[in-house]
């Protein structure tokens, strides 16, 4: 795999991931429209895209292991950072466009409404991951980097719970996301159990 090919794929991924954002911007500027409740439409589109991207990020490792396409790992950072951007835009839409910087009511929301609390924690968990996404941070942190970045699992769980708990009554979409997340986490648990078994077997013989 050449560097140039990977660069090309990354650029494609970046462009593809920007489509939901560009589509929103186009709709906000008169190409189509955002419907009767534009702020909510923006909020939900950004939130849904964040969830899509966190699940796609988590699919990279299983995909690499199953297909042997090692270069896929090179896309993880791009996807993860794009996901973080959408999460930040989602939060900013809520704080600025929806709540109009009403800090008191925002404080009540974050402290008293469980789904917002969970979403807020999920966002906070992603901050150190985004900050340590550079090559130099990865080198500096060494083995601790991999440990730190396991926080993505928790962030994903909280993100999907955030989605589930805000649903009024129809939870079919959140259930779908929960199942996909459980499969992705299950794959990792399975791998981990197998490796422990392998180590144990080696110790026994």
């Amino acid at each position, binding site marked *: 795999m050449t560097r140039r090919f990977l660069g090309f794929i990354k650029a494609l991924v970046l462009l593809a991931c920007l489509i939901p954002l560009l589509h929103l911007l186009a709709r906000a500027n008169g190409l189509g429209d955002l419907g*009767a409740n534009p702020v*909510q439409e923006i909020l939900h589109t950004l939130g849904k895209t964040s969830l899509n991207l966190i699940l796609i990020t988590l699919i990279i490792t299983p995909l690499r292991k199953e297909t042997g396409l090692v270069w896929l790992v090179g896309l993880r950072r791009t996807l993860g950072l794009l996901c973080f951007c959408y999460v930040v835009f989602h939060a900013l839409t809520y704080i600025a466009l929806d709540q109009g910087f009403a800090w008191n009511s925002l404080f009540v929301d974050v402290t008293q409404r469980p789904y917002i609390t969970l979403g807020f924690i999920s966002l906070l968990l992603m901050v150190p991951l985004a900050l340590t996404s550079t090559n130099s941070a990865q080198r500096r942190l060494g083995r601790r980097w991999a440990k730190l970045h396991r926080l993505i699992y928790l962030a994903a769980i909280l993100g999907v719970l955030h989605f589930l708990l805000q649903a009024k009554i129809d939870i079919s979409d959140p259930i779908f996301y929960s199942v996909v997340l459980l499969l992705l986490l299950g794959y990792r648990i399975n791998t981990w159990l197998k490796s422990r078994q392998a180590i144990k077997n080696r110790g026994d013989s």
Partner: protein
Amino acid sequence: MTLIKRPQDIKASEITPESTFRQRRMLLKTALAMGLIKTANLSAQEDLIPLNQKESGNREQPFPESGRLNDLKSWPSNVSSEPTSFEDVTGYNNYYEFGTSKTDPASNAHTLETHPWTVTVEGEAKKTGTFALEDIIKGHTLEERIYRFRCVEAWSMVVPWVGFPLGDLLKRFEPTSQAKYVQFFTLNDPDQMPGVRYPVLRWPYREGLTIEEAMHPLTLLTVGLYGQVLPNQNGAPLRLIVPWKYGFKSIKSIVRIRFMDEQPQTSWNMANAREYGFYSNVNPDKSHPRWSQATERVLGGSIFSARVPTMLFNGYAEEVASLYTNLNLMTNY
């Protein structure tokens, strides 16, 4: 022979002086208010006869073919803001029988058959049975009423509804003294309503009011909006509008009315009693467990429109607060 004279044919002496004209109107108004004159529309109301006791099986169209509802009585609205656009009123709906997204009802509700339509009346009333929609509407003067509409999801709109006071109809069924509540049911037909195949809520959708709420002059039995018959996605052909309560209380496409002596079951309350109470009066101080009700987003705004404060009883406190003087609104939400 000309019955209507052209202006140049009218002699000055024939013209009623304005003061006399006003006096006559005043007299009429006073007499009407005192109940001395039976108004034309009330005398035109025949006794309601159930369909199975009627001789003719022919069913009339309840509304003009054009769908336009004309000669609407105007009503003094206290809403200062402009009505929400027809497009938004008819394109952003909660009507789970046609799907759970806001745009599902507008895309799916064309399968609803609104004629012939019947309403079954049962329970604590002298006149019960199954009645034709055209018989129910006949004789009632349709009014255009501009009301605020506040959804429990903290968005709102302003709608020019067309209808008449529910109480005027309910009286014709002669409820007994045991009738303390009224329950309403929506049509439940999987062939017309794709959403009822999924148990999102308990079907048929049901709602209820106390008899005092049902008889309140603001409670509107609604057949139209924007001067035309209700579009299917807005609850055609017959729905309730209870403007001081969250929108889900304003049940759509009513097929059954039941007078009861105990508090009726309501679909959202059955689904989640903690989140959706029987009364569900609009109250900015009583948060939904998962979101604040203090403010609302007015539909049709731009992305930079701010939320606006929600009013107690959705701004109708002057008219309805007396219904709840002995009720703790924080515990009876």
